[in-house]
């Protein structure tokens, strides 16, 4: 729309509209009567064709004419009240955005209290409330299922939220913080530092941590390299650090996949996990409900 910001176009549109209305009014006024030619009969439209076929003139009723004038009046009133004449905003100052905001605040006023009811309750209490769980599920399906799945079991690159394995911690408050502020899980690329052989050795060692199938010789060689390059985040024993979202490597839960090839790819290129912050978009009350719902997901198991 940047082409139409100059005031010329506003005047152009307003001018065409005003001229059209004036012209239509004049046209209507002049077309209510007709001058008859000499010898022309008012009742007949055509004299005769096909020998004997004549068409009678049936004048429209006058109220019909008033309807035409009424539409002109309607148009003028409408253009005075609402935007339509170029950039003129109209007496009522109506706008689509304004209407949307109005409806939004109306909806918030109506549904806000339903969510706010749970805000003061402890997350564990909310998680146990069946109604809150239902609402939480609906929110989850709307805002979270695109990445974590309708069943919250995640996918490659998106953590499973239904098990007991947590990257940043599974207590209710940490879950709430993850949802509210988002998370950025960064695993630096180590391919250049380790070299191809080194990467392979470290990958084998990582596989050995979780008791997976691995090459024992390579793993033994990777042990020291792991201590140098990886232990700062994943700890010397490979159990990870929840404070920075470094995953536990000693279990069989893998975010990107647990095959040797995938682990090599992870080490070589690094990973960039990104959970977007929801607080600004959803507000406190919804984040609270979602946190309780997600916390409740793994509690029954």
């Amino acid at each position, binding site marked *: 729309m940047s082409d139409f910001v100059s005031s010329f176009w506003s005047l152009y549109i307003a001018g065409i509209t005003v001229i059209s209305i004036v012209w239509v009014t004049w046209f209507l006024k002049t077309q209510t*009567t007709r001058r008859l030619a000499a010898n022309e009969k008012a009742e007949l439209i055509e004299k005769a064709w096909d020998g004997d076929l004549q068409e009678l003139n049936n004048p429209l*009723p006058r109220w019909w004419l008033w309807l035409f004038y009424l539409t002109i009046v309607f148009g003028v009133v409408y253009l005075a009240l609402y935007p339509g004449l170029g950039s003129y905003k109209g007496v009522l100052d109506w706008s689509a955005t304004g209407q949307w905001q109005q409806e939004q605040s109306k909806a918030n006023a109506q549904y806000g209290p339903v969510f706010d009811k749970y805000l003061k309750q402890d997350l564990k209490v909310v998680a146990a409330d069946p109604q809150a769980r239902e609402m939480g599920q609906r929110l989850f399906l709307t805002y979270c299922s695109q990445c974590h799945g309708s069943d919250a079991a*995640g*996918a490659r690159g998106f953590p499973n939220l239904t098990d007991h394995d947590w990257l940043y911690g599974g207590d209710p408050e940490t879950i709430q913080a993850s949802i509210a502020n988002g998370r950025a899980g960064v695993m630096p690329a180590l391919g250049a530092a380790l070299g191809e052989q080194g990467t392979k050795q470290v990958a084998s060692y990582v596989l050995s941590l979780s008791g997976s199938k691995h090459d024992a010789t390579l793993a033994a060689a990777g042990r020291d390299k792991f201590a140098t390059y990886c232990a700062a985040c994943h700890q010397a024993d490979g159990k990870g650090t929840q404070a920075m979202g470094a995953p536990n490597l000693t279990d069989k839960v893998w975010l990107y996949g647990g095959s040797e090839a995938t682990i090599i790819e992870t080490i070589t290129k690094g990973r960039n996990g990104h959970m977007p912050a929801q607080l600004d978009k959803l507000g406190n009350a919804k984040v609270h409900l979602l946190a309780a719902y997600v916390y409740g997901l793994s509690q029954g198991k």
Partner: protein
Amino acid sequence: MEQALYAVKQKIYPRAVSGWFASWRVALVLFTQLLYYGLPWLSWDGRQAILLDLAQRKFYILGLVFWPQDFIYLTGLLVIAAFSLFLFTAIAGRLWCGFACPQTVYTELFLWIERNIEGDRLKQMKLDRQAWNIEKIARKTAKHTAWLALALWTGFTFVGYFTPIKELAISFAHWTLGPWETFWIFFYGCATYGNAGFMREQVCKYMCPYARFQSVMFDSDTLTVTYDSSRGEPRGPRSKSTDRHAAGLGDCVDCSICVQVCPTDIDIRNGLQYECIGCAACIDGCAQVMAKMGYPRGLIRYTTENVIKGKYPDSSILSHVLRPRTLIYSVLLLAIVATLGMALISRVPLRADAIRDRIAARETAEGYIENVYRLQIINMENRPHRYVISVAGLPGIKLADSSPLVQVAPLGTHDAVVHVQIDPGELSTRSSPVQFKIRSLDNPDLTTTVRSTFLNR
């Protein structure tokens, strides 16, 4: 000289008429209006028999509940209505206009009220001409009050098809109607009052599109209200004792009864006109005059253009009813009725949609490829059902969930999350079609299948 292209409306005072066709019209007015005013009060299974619940988007018609997804049936109904109109029009002209159209029906009701309060044509004209006095004020007030009462009742009944009429009656009595109910009752009421009280023939003449294509629906074998000019002309007044043949006169006594009874104020003796709504009031009026004169009836009658042209006598009109045009309409009509009937009988009140989760396929700990779907199951029937879900389409494909049993409330929707798993060895392509079958446990006929795709990682 100047000619006005818009004319001031002339009020028409149609004269009351009785006779065979008038009785038919009364019968049809009674039939359609008993149906219209009565139907919303009927009950079925503890609820209103016909209720178009727009807010809930459920349309209850007797034992059936229709959903917005069933709109195709409405299409069928409209096509049936259209072809019936074509067929009836091709056979006997504007039967719809003259006998069943709401505009005619409500005008008849309003005219009946008007005649009972103001008297017939001449009395009405006299009353309108005279200056305002107590009697005129009293009669006019009574008429408009009766009109408004009927119009309001009509508007109320109309809304009663969309919101339960018994509750509506209670809130109407307590004056606690919702804003939209109030609006529609008064809007529809005012429309009835205006259309049947004031607009009348103006609607037929200037607004109704049906009048515009009357000419293409007629052919030379269509029965229409026709003045037999070969019998009637030359017209002229005469005393009952005059021998018309000797005087060189036709059967038309030029009494203008046919014009006086006409609700659209046309002279049928000028031939068929688009304003003619085929109400046959002129036939009844003329028949009475012919009887009085001792002439045979039928100077104005239902007959065809070909009869008037002398191609065949009135007695063989029936043999001309069946002709290609009416046969084609009948066959099409029967076909659509049969199709709609079959579709209604075989309708399965169960629907489902399969929505695959946007996330990529995942690999389970057992090495299966897993896709997650949300199955939206709609129970379109007014009782609860338990459905069992199964999946097919690929060898060895299965559902991971332990109990793919879903309980759905009457007229309810349920989102079931299902996990579909398959051995990766069975997948040769990146995307394969799969089918979900949803079957009711209590009624095996209640089964539906939805298609989706299964993605390999």
